[in-house]
């Protein structure tokens, strides 16, 4: 790395201020262009035909009538996607998920697609495609799928991570184990042991903007894709691999994004739109309906988790163990592995073991959802932690503080922690005024902790200074959570100029080197790091230009408060040169001034949060009202505190929806029954209280400013915090998420009997 990255206690003037967002005006005036807002001359409308069956052989697809319909320009089935994956099973899974290859694997699985001159013609064409199915036995429940005799989703799947390697097919795609010490010995030392099983239902990220793209691909193998995505470089690479294109020939531009939360990290219709365009030789616009978004994109896993924790009377945990079963939809995933890794990450444990099982079912291919897999594991673990504290007669916060991980703790998933925030967030909870609020009748309070790894990854950034001194910063990480404001602040900080002087653009795939997808809370962390380095790179050039202007050695030039200053007594007659002055002269001093950086932003600091919430439960209807909710989280360094608070609140809001009402409901026929926002109930404004936040800043030593990713951790504790609060309010332990009114009422009534 070219620059010193050790954290220093810097006196920031821009970083940490709450400036206006640069995209605000565009978004409130409707000028911002989202996925469905691009159009091209001669474009066609793309539509996808989807399987109504959970599991079926496709014995025949007759597209002849559709092809003859006037106005239809292209019809595709699985046969139109030759296997170019070179034996890469992961790529083949993506391809098969985009378009079925002889077998429909879930309700909503794409089986054919058309491109036509308008929507009416495209819809008519879909009705003219005749698909002959032979229905197969299906399974949608994670526990049912691992029972002997369950329908096997893929006959080629052998459980990985098991020795000796199995020889027969299984719906368990992978077993992963983490931990250290001796759990049996630890449990033998325990005075109290709590063991409990939990279930969580499948949820969707619920982004308001459906998937949409405009694809152009010519017979010469070069094309363009405008798309709503969290990672246009990843989309480019995957589409190019699936369709046999060179990456440089496919230019992908990311639109403004109306929410992603992990759900826009994978391709679904984009390769289909490109292939339709190639076949029709016209641009194709493909926009998913809400029904398609629910049935055929990537929700998170439904899960089933067993947890067992033992502790001494003095409150010290002696051993903890968990078995986690996560369904990954119809294709193998690694979601249970993440669940197993994160489950006990908050605690300092001598003896710990977690085992994850990734399970195949007839549901859509699971994708990431904000700290993927961690909320369900936290729900189970933090519920048992609460039960254990109660059994020991200890305060639930004190019990957590006593067992919290700290600097030097060997994490349950392997590494040894550096400076971390779990202890400080718990201390902040303990001292928060929220905890002193008196609870009324039918009310309960819950506290829970959460952890997420965070990610850095490949990053490439350009910074160009205009002749008027304004600065264009081009980054390759899609702005899903306000990163443009934060990155402009960082550039302004480094250059010593006004925030308003910087404009941040998300560059397309042909204007920058590869950038990893905006995931793992990496946008501000990694592009922030690259921006710092690119700005320092530009400052070097600015200093050289000043040195040349003054005709002194560059070593005698320093950069301070947005201007070059000449050092030393021999230079004290030289007036400083501002960035604007140097930029104005740049055409005659060597041309444009720019900075550049490419980096693998290693060292994303792990992130911890503790949440507290008060609820009131109507004992006659089972309805839960969230009375008060507070998030405490370590941000490392909050570049733009408004956005950090927004991330804390957003994660809590999604977690509240998940905890109380959101769930995929499948019928016995394996069909999704609630593919719409009426019956898939994300919370509306009036369902939520003001969500209070407290930012802690425990610097990440691997980032120049101490930044940690903040986007995801906030969704980890809510299921458990609300579960604990509801359980305390009704006096019955809740073990099944969502804690919908019928489930809560049923739990209350069952406990009475």
């Amino acid at each position, binding site marked *: 790395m070219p620059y010193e990255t050790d954290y220093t206690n810097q006196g920031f003037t821009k970083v940490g201020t709450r400036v206006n967002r640069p995209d605000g005006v565009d978004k409130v005036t409707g000028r911002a262009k989202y996925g469905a807002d691009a159009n091209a001359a001669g474009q066609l409308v793309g539509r996808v035909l989807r399987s109504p069956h959970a599991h079926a052989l496709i014995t025949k697809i007759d597209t002849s009538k559709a092809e003859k319909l006037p106005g239809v320009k292209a019809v595709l089935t699985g046969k139109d996607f030759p296997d170019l994956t070179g034996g890469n099973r992961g790529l083949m899974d993506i391809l098969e998920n985009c378009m079925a290859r002889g077998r429909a694997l879930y309700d909503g699985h794409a089986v054919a697609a058309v491109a036509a001159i308008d929507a009416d013609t495209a*819809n008519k064409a879909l009705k003219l495609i005749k698909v002959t199915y032979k229905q197969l036995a299906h399974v949608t429940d994670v526990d049912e799928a691992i029972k002997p005799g369950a329908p096997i989703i893929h006959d080629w799947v052998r459980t990985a991570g098991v020795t000796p390697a199995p020889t027969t097919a299984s719906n368990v795609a992978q077993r992963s184990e983490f931990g250290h010490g001796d759990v049996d010995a630890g449990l033998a030392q325990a005075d109290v042991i709590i063991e409990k099983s939990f279930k969580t239902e499948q949820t969707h990220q619920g982004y308001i903007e459906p998937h949409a793209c405009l694809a152009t691909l010519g017979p010469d193998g070069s094309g363009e894709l405008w798309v709503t995505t969290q990672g246009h470089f990843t989309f480019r690479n995957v589409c190019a691999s699936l369709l046999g294109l060179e990456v440089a020939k496919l230019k992908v531009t990311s639109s403004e994004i109306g929410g992603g939360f992990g759900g826009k990290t994978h391709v679904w219709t984009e390769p289909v739109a490109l292939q339709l365009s190639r076949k029709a030789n016209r641009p194709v616009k493909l926009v998913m309906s809400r*029904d398609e978004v629910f049935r055929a994109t990537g929700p998170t896993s439904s899960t089933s988790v067993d947890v067992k924790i033992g502790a001494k009377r003095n409150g010290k945990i002696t051993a903890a163990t968990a078995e986690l079963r996560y369904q990954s939809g119809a294709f193998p995933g690694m979601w249970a592995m993440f669940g197993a890794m994160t489950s006990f990450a908050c605690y300092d444990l001598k003896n710990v073991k977690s085992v994850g099982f990734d399970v195949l079912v007839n549901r859509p291919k699971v994708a990431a959802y904000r700290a993927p897999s961690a909320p369900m594991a936290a729900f189970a673990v933090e519920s048992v932690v609460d039960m254990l504290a109660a059994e020991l007669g200890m305060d639930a916060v004190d019990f957590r503080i006593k067992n919290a991980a700290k600097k030097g703790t060997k994490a349950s998933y392997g590494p040894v922690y550096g400076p971390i925030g779990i202890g400080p967030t718990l201390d902040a909870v303990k001292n928060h005024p929220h905890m002193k609020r008196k609870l009324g009748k039918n009310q309960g309070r819950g506290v829970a902790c959460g952890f997420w790894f965070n990610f850095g990854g490949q990053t490439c950034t350009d910074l160009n200074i205009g002749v008027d001194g304004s600065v264009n910063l081009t980054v390759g990480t899609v702005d899903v959570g306000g990163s443009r404001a934060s990155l402009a602040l960082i550039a302004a900080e480094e250059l010593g100029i006004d925030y308003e002087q910087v404009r941040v653009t998300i560059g397309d795939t042909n204007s920058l080197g590869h950038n990893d997808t905006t995931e793992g809370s990496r946008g501000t962390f990694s592009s922030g790091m690259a921006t710092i380095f690119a700005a320092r790179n530009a400052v070097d050039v600015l200093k050289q230009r000043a040195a040349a202007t003054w005709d002194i050695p560059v070593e005698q030039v320093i950069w301070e408060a947005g201007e070059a200053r000449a050092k030393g007594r021999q230079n004290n007659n030289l007036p400083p040169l501002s960035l604007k002055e140097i930029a104005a002269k740049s055409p005659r001093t060597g041309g444009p001034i720019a900075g550049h950086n490419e980096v693998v932003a290693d060292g994303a600091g792990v992130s911890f949060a503790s949440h507290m919430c008060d609820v009131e439960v109507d004992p*006659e*209807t*089972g*309805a839960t009202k969230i009375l008060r909710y507070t998030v405490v989280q370590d941000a490392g360094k909050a570049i733009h505190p408004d956005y950090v608070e927004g991330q804390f609140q957003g994660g809590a809001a999604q977690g509240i929806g998940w905890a*109380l*009402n959101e769930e995929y*409901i499948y019928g016995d026929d394996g069909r999704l*029954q*609630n593919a719409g*926002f*009426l*019956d898939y*109930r994300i*919370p*509306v404004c*009036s*369902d939520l209280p003001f969500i209070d936040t407290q930012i802690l800043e425990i610097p990440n030593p691997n980032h120049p400013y101490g930044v940690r990713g903040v986007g995801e951790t906030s969704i980890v504790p809510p299921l458990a915090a609300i579960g604990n609060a509801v359980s305390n309010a009704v006096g019955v332990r809740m073990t099944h998420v969502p804690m*919908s*009114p*019928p489930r809560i*009422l*049923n739990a209350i009534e069952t406990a009475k009997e």
Partner: protein
Amino acid sequence: MRFESPTTTKAAATLLASESGIAHVLAGGTDLLVRMKMGAIEPDLIVDIKRIESLRTLKVAAAGVQIGAAVPAVRLSESEKLRNLWPGVVEAANLIGSDQIQGRCTVVGNLCNASPAADSVPALIAAGAKALVVGPKGKRRVAVEKVVLGPGRTSLARDEFIEAVVLPARTGKSADAYLRFTPRTEMDIAVVSAAINLTLSRGIVQSAKVVLGAVAPTAVVVPAAAKALIGSKLDDAALDKMVAACRAACNPIDDKRGTIEYRTKVAGVMARRAALIAYERAGGSK
């Protein structure tokens, strides 16, 4: 698809009568347009009735209330007089969808959509509302409970539509109330609901009507529940009897929105709470 905006009820009836394909009446459009967008229906003719002056009229008097078929729900809550006379009807209409939806949707549309979970229908039935039906052969009056036959099905002939609903004169110490249960606070659809209309004399219930929503293919009038309240001051024994009658009248389904058991149980809870609200509104005190 043809789109027509007649200015008289007669012209509207003639258009509907002469259409050989699928015709739909458009008022607020908050159900119709959604169904069209989903591809559930493909009408040949749409008759927009909002240009018919008389259908945009809301007449509110103690002697009777007439709500035109094109009157959006928001106008009901804007009438203080109506809120005082029929608070239950108004609160039901103002639970439909959201503020934005209520700016367009109408109670007549809510009735003709014939959903078992419609919010305004139980309240209209409890109020003793009548529908004014227009057809090519003239007009007829029909009790609101006779309009809906089942989910999505009404007793209207294909060339008929409803011009307005009328609420009867208010006498004595009377009030109504409507409550529904939804998992969300708004933008939701009733899992179960109850409407109750009471008239008191010296704090004793003289007459009552109890109607449940979303517990059967249509809204259910529960005479046994009303009978349990009449003659009482809504003491616990009377309320318990009413709740039992309500639960006995439930014939719900198990679906994504609720279970048979849950709907049956909560129907009683909603009815009990609605009865107490109506009683207090009518001037009763416990």
